[in-house]
Each structure stands twice: as structure tokens, then as C-alpha cells.
């Protein structure tokens, strides 16, 4: 993060200010199109729309109360076969930006010509809860958001410590709202691309009658608040993960976790970083002759069918945990209320920590499993000395 930024006057709220600013960018040709959530025709959800007509922005919602589609996945679908020819801005949450960056590294998205604009995120409501009563839920979410009260949000959001730009340095522009005076928000550039956009749009700086606010002052205040909240959230996250780890420790409790799993694979389908056209766990590799299933049933007395539930979940974790951004889309999609996002974010944190990697931070960080050093991770090896030293002494 650098100190290139600007202040957004937001007398009617940050949302209106941002929408107004975005309209200006369209009119002035800074962006050719905007990718942003918009209310669905039935008024019952939100969907990402790529739009170039500024009038549509009137029904746009930068941080809706739910996240039915992960923004990173949306960007991936748009650019998986090549970059966009025109300049677009994608207004997304930090976890969605991080997923987009991971997808880019996985060669499933192309972020050239995409300006990632992120916003400080207080979280979203569980999707099923929202769908039961969209109107009341929206009000509840709005209230909780402005107070930065995460208690009604999804469990994944409650323990999120990656909700701002310090932890999403891959975004090009970031809207900071935490700790800002009512009526203001700050815009910070996270990259050269973002700086250029700021220069071209020249948002106004705030001047009040009695006091004058300095941009640097506001930035410092905001950064301090973010850092404080991050520390608190990290503690919460670590505690939650420790509790969860205990709750699912041992085979019995792990199996219990998946007792209701119906193998629908919704979790895999909505996950932004699970991009395989045909998932390994749905491929011919796991389709076997009946004799195989009968033999397995014979050995144990019974075989849960369709089989390989645990294999699917642990296998999927082994495939994507290093890229998991803890967005929680999987848990929203599970029809059986399995706390799958919480489990996967635990596994992801551990996997990434072990490999010294954090998913989605920067396009420059190589993916941990496609790179390696000669001299690393020795603690998982058996030391040379222990195996061969004895032999060498004998041979000598």
C-alpha cells in the first residue's frame, strides 16, 4: 500500500458515492464497462452484471448482503479464454479479488485490462437465511455492516482477517470505510494501474469549514483501525480454528462431520479455485466394476453408496487448499448445512502456512506446488545422516 489516495465524499452514503464515481468513469471513458453486483429481476438476490450503460448502475449494489456467486469465479468465466479487449473495473470483496489472482496464477483468468476495486468488507449473511426473507435480511445486514458487527454474518466471515487491502495487496484500488467519518471514505491505489485511474478520475478531496482534513491523516487513521481489527480478527480466527480442530479430531468425529453429505458436489462447483471441467472425483478413475463395490461392501459389512465421500472432501482439500481464500461459497451452497467452509479454511491456513504461502496476495508469488527449492522443508524428510551414516562408517 502506498500513500497515493483520495477521499470520497459520501454524504448520501458510501454506496451512492461509489456509484456516482463509477458513472463518471464510464462517461469519461476511464473504464469501458463495470463488473458489479446488481439486484436480480425478482428482487430476491444479486448477480454480477458486466455493464456499460451507466443507467444500470442505479440498481447496482457494491457490497450486497449475500455472495451467491464468487466474484473471482465470475471474472474467471469471463476471461478464461483470453483477456478482455476493453478496460473494465470489477467491484468486489477482498476474498473475491484474491480468488481472481489465484485463478490468474492457475491460468484460469486473465486480469489484464481488469482494474480490481475492493472495499472493506464486514461480511455477508448466510444465503439460505437471506432467501427466507430478503427484505428484512437486507435491513439487518445494512445495520450490522455499518456497525462492523459480524455476529449475523456467516461463520466464515466472522473469523475473516483478510477483509481489507493490507491483506489484499493485489487489488488495484481499494475503498476504505472502516473508521472513516460518516460521509467520507478513502480511495487508495494498490498498484500503478490504480494510481493511473485515480489520476484520471481526480475525485475531490474533502474540505470542511472549520477543520481541514489531510488525506494522509485520514489514511493513517484508517490504516490504524484496519490493523487493530485485523489483529482482533486473527485472534478470533485462531481460537475458532483451534476449537474446530478439536471438534473434528479423530476419524470418528471427522466421519460424523460428513454424516449428512449427499455427494452433490455443490461445494466443489461453486468454489472459485476449483476450476476443472471434469473433477477427478467425477471421472472414470472412480467408476469401477460392480465386483469392486461388492468386494468393498463385503470387507466392511456395508459400503456407503455412492462411496468415497471422505475421499472426495480430503482429496479436494489436497487439490485446492493451497489456493483456498476462505470465501465460504462452499458452505452457502451445501444443502445439508455441513460447516465445510470452516473446515476448509482451517485446512487451508495450515497448508499455506506450512508452505510459507498466502493465497491470492500477489501475482508474483509463485504457486507453492509448482515451485520448489533444494534446501527447504527438511522436517518432513528422514535425515540423510540417520539412514546412511551407519553404513558409511561400516564401509569406511
Amino acid at each position, binding site marked *: 500500500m502506498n500513500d497515493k489516495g483520495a477521499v470520497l465524499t459520501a454524504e448520501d452514503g458510501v454506496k451512492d458515492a461509489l456509484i456516482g464515481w463509477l458513472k463518471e468513469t464510464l462517461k469519461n471513458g476511464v473504464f469501458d464497462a463495470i463488473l458489479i453486483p446488481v439486484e*436480480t*429481476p425478482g428482487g430476491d438476490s444479486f*448477480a454480477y*452484471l458486466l*455493464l456499460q450503460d451507466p443507467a*444500470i448502475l442505479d440498481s447496482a449494489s457494491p457490497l450486497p448482503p449475500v455472495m451467491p456467486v464468487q466474484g473471482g469465479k465470475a471474472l474467471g468465466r469471463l476471461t478464461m479464454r483470453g483477456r478482455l479487449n476493453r478496460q473494465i473495473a470489477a467491484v468486489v470483496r477482498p476474498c473475491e479479488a484474491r480468488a481472481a489472482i489465484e485463478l490468474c496464477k492457475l491460468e484460469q483468468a486473465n486480469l489484464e485490462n481488469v482494474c480490481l476495486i475492493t472495499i472493506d468488507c464486514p461480511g455477508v449473511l448466510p444465503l439460505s437465511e437471506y432467501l427466507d426473507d430478503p427484505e428484512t435480511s437486507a435491513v439487518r445486514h445494512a445495520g450490522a455492516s455499518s456497525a462492523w458487527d459480524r455476529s449475523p454474518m456467516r461463520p466464515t466471515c466472522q473469523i475473516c482477517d483478510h477483509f481489507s487491502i493490507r491483506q489484499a495487496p493485489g487489488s488495484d484500488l481499494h475503498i476504505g470505510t472502516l473508521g472513516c467519518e460518516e460521509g467520507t471514505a478513502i480511495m487508495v491505489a494498490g498498484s500503478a494501474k490504480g494510481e493511473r485511474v485515480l489520476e484520471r478520475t481526480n475525485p475531490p478531496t474533502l474540505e470542511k469549514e472549520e477543520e481541514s482534513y489531510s488525506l494522509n491523516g485520514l489514511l493513517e487513521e484508517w490504516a490504524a483501525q484496519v490493523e487493530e481489527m485485523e489483529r482482533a480478527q486473527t485472534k478470533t480466527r485462531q481460537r475458532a480454528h483451534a476449537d474446530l480442530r478439536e471438534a473434528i479430531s479423530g476419524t470418528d468425529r471427522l466421519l460424523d462431520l460428513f454424516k449428512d453429505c449427499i455427494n452433490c458436489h455443490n461445494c466443489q462447483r461453486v468454489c472459485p479455485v476449483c476450476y476443472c471441467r471434469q473433477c477427478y472425483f467425477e471421472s472414470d478413475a472412480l467408476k469401477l466394476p460392480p465386483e469392486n463395490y461388492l468386494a468393498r461392501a463385503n470387507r466392511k459389512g456395508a459400503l456407503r453408496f455412492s462411496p468415497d465421500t471422505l475421499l472426495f472432501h480430503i482429496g479436494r482439500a489436497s487439490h485446492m487448499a493451497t489456493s483456498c481464500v476462505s470465501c465460504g461459497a462452499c458452505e452457502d451452497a451445501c444443502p445439508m448445512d455441513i460447516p465445510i467452509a470452516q473446515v476448509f479454511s482451517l485446512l487451508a491456513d495450515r497448508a499455506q502456512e506450512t508452505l510459507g504461502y498466502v493465497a491470492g496476495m500477489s501475482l508474483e508469488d509463485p504457486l507453492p506446488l509448482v515451485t520448489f527449492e533444494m534446501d527447504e522443508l527438511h522436517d518432513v524428510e528422514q535425515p540423510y545422516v540417520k539412514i546412511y551414516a551407519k553404513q558409511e562408517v561400516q564401509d569406511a
Partner: protein
Amino acid sequence: MEDQAFAPTIVGFLCNWCTYAAADSAGVSRFKMPPSVMVVRVMCTGRVDPLFVLTAFLRGADGVLISGCWPGQCHYQTGNLQARRRTVLLKSIFNALELEMEERFRLSWVSSSEAPRFVQVVKGFDRQIKDLGPCPIQDELFL
């Protein structure tokens, strides 16, 4: 502001051996026809996947025409009979959802020697689509 005259876009899947030949013949004979049909030549109407029809409508076609050999005259024996069944299937789906698409989607038989008939089919369909107006699907953002 409305367009002065609505110029329909009709995607026409014409079978190579019969209708396409008729269309070609009509062109050579300089029969006048409205320019609304965008021709996609297929070797047989049996090649037309219902998804082609759906794709055409979702991408902005106002009407879709499938035209080929008369039953019994298919160059590949029975391709047109399959096309007929697929047409029935698609129309039953449109019907169930009351999408008012049935009239925008036509199957016709025009043999290679029936150039004037091809002209009639096109003129008639063009008029029908003009009456129906642009297909509203093409303006939807949430597709």
C-alpha cells in the same frame, strides 16, 4: 425512439441438398425476397441440435427457420424425421413455459426444385416475424 421499420433477423438452417439448393436457385433466378434470413447451411436438417435454436434466440434472432427435404426424400434417409421430432420437443418446452416462441420457430420442407416455394416460405415467415416484432429475449440482461 422506435426504428422506422423493424428489420427481422431470421436464422435459417437450410439443408444442403434441398432447401439450400432451392435458395441458391432462387437467388440465381433473381427472385425478390426480404433480406431477413441469415443462412446457415447444414448437410441435413438432422444436424440441427435444439441447442442451435436456443442459442440463436438467446443471441438475438427474431425467428429461426429450419428447412430441408420432404419426408421420404432426405439425402441421408431419415435425418429430416429426426428434425421433425426435435421440433416437436422444443415447441412442447416453449409451450409449457408459455414463452410465445412457437410462432417464431418454423420447420418447413422445401425441395431443391421448389425455388418459388422457398421464396413464399421466406416472405411468409418474414411477414409473421414483422407482425410479432423483435424477439424480447435479446434485450434481457439476466440471461
